[in-house]
């Protein structure tokens, strides 16, 4: 299959990280064209392209822009979600490291579409250097008139402000992100009102993911039909996939939506590490239900992954091989949610903590017969019982690992230890 890379097409050329290099490749042409268009036409274009949010939920981008009311008398804001914290996900990081101006151009076009004059980019604090790369690009764009007053010799003003987080997974959730941007604890807000109506400083706000916005300049230049020429009917375009864990060549790969998982694993990533066999994988980060070797031919698009019982999420594939213990992996993932729970809702704050304890007990060999049904019950008591989706991520790990690997849980109880540790000890003793 021939696929011409879109977001990654200039990755081999380090000069695109500079403004001159980006402009030499046709950069900021989309912004110039967008300045000639009516905001309503830009929103319609985004709708026609079928672009869906790449941050996890897959919500149609044009629809989101269209929800922003224009008659409130308040300013409107575009907020870029560059918090990228979903375990297993790192494509936004590499996209910005290599091609920061494409993000600024996409942000500027989104701003034109909703009539925004100040846009914010929320970067996770740990991306210290990536934020410096981005700040340098912002400074360059101001100097050369792509940002600031009268962008590209028009009468439109646009400021872009970079804001650094300080280490909190939950700030990737859009309402928590807005609280954090306002200088508060990053706890999610009750919805409605949705950010489109009352977001940042209670003003109409669009929150878009980095990868989503980086698709926008090409859509403006090449059109909605071009965008739809790869991908599937309901999941058009390409997507960045991060594959990590037990594979030969971990990394970020851009593929058309609808590509079979086998192709990502075997062709792009070189297969499972050391020629071992595939045991389990997450299709979209640790919050998405685990799939197994049975699902190797599932297509990577929103609908196909949902039909297989999981979610495309951020497209972050983490691979476990036959020698990896699913109970240990579940313990590690649930410990993450226990650590990152913001503490607002009881099912999440208490549920993740207790689930972590029970999983730890099972893994350490003190599991009881009743623990397996107990885990099932806990998963059910956490899922959909909290404000935001953080706790659902933990429940997804619990429920999917039990669904596909119940025997492995029971083996932990029966043996009174982790069956995989014994294998490791034997291997060490033999070597």
């Amino acid at each position, binding site marked *: 299959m021939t696929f011409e890379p879109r977001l990654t097409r200039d990755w081999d050329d380090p000069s695109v990280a500079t403004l001159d290099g980006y402009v030499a490749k046709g950069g900021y042409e989309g912004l110039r064209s967008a300045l000639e268009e009516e905001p309503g036409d830009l929103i319609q274009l985004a709708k026609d392209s079928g672009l869906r949010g790449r941050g996890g939920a897959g919500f149609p981008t044009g629809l989101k822009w269209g929800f922003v009311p224009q008659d409130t008398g308040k300013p409107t804001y575009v907020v870029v979600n560059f918090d990228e914290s979903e*375990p297993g996900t790192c494509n936004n990081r590499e996209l910005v490291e290599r091609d920061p101006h494409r993000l600024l151009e996409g942000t500027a076009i989104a701003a034109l579409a909703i009539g925004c004059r100040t846009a914010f980019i929320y970067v*996770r604090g*740990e991306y*210290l250097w990536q934020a*410096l790369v981005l700040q340098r690009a912002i400074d360059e764009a101001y100097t050369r008139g792509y940002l600031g007053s009268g962008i590209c010799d028009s009468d439109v003003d646009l400021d872009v402000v970079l804001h*650094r987080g*300080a280490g909190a*997974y939950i700030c990737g959730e859009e309402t928590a992100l807005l609280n954090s941007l306002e200088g508060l604890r990053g706890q999610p807000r009750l919805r409605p009102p949705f950010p489109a109506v009352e977001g940042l400083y209670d003003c109409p706000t669009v929150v878009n993911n980095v990868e989503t916005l980086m698709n926008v300049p090409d859509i403006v230049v090449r059109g909605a039909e071009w965008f739809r020429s790869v991908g599937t009917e309901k999941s058009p375009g390409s997507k960045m996939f*991060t594959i990590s864990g037990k594979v030969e060549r971990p990394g970020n790969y851009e593929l058309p939506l609808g590509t079979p998982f086998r192709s990502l694993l075997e062709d792009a990533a070189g297969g499972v590490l050391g020629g071992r066999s595939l045991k389990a994988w997450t299709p979209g980060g640790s919050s998405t239900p685990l799939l197994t070797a049975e699902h190797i031919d599932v297509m990577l698009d929103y609908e196909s992954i949902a039909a297989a019982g999981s979610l495309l999420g951020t497209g972050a594939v983490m691979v476990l091989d036959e020698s990896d213990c699913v109970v240990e992996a579940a313990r590690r993932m649930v410990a993450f949610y226990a650590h*990152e729970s913001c503490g607002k809702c009881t099912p999440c704050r208490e549920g993740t903590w207790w689930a972590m304890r029970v999983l730890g007990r099972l893994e350490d060999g003190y599991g009881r017969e009743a623990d397996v049904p107990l885990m099932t019950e806990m998963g059910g008591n956490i899922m959909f019982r909290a404000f935001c989706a953080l706790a659902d991520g933990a429940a997804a790990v619990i429920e999917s690992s039990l669904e596909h690997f119940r025997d492995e849980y029971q083996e932990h109880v029966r043996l009174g230890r982790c069956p995989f540790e014994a294998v490791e000890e034997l291997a060490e003793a033999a070597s």
Partner: protein
Amino acid sequence: MPLLYVAQSVEGHLSREGLREVAGLLGITTAEVEAVATFYTMYRLRPTGRHVVNVCTNLSCALLGGKDVLEAAYGAAGMRHDQDASEDGAITIHEEECLGVCDFAPAVQIDFANHDRVTPDRMAELIGSLRAGEVPAPSRGSAPESFRGACRLLAGLEEVPA
């Protein structure tokens, strides 16, 4: 939030005095400032060494030996898990959640500069360099001189290097 980074860049952590100072500047209560400071992991409420070493042990890193890298860091720094910093004041070690470099797992950050595919042996070397007063070159970008230097960058107090 930038002001908390400023305060942290002075003492290497947020002391009571630092929190009070920020509250005074903003005209809000110390409790309000503390509520924010305690929410985020990059604000340190305990004293830190000259360098802060973050070791990721989330799933992708754990699958490739992140836990062993963490233990190697403690071993090389001669530290117990309950110590704020090594005896010589050079190192603080922090077990991290996903650092967003799963493609280069196991991931380590020294003062938020990335070191890719770190093995336990490499971890020990890195800690050795830090204790000898050197700042090892990161895998990408440039490295801050210290944790406090990183906080100055995070606060936006320093110019963006060219």
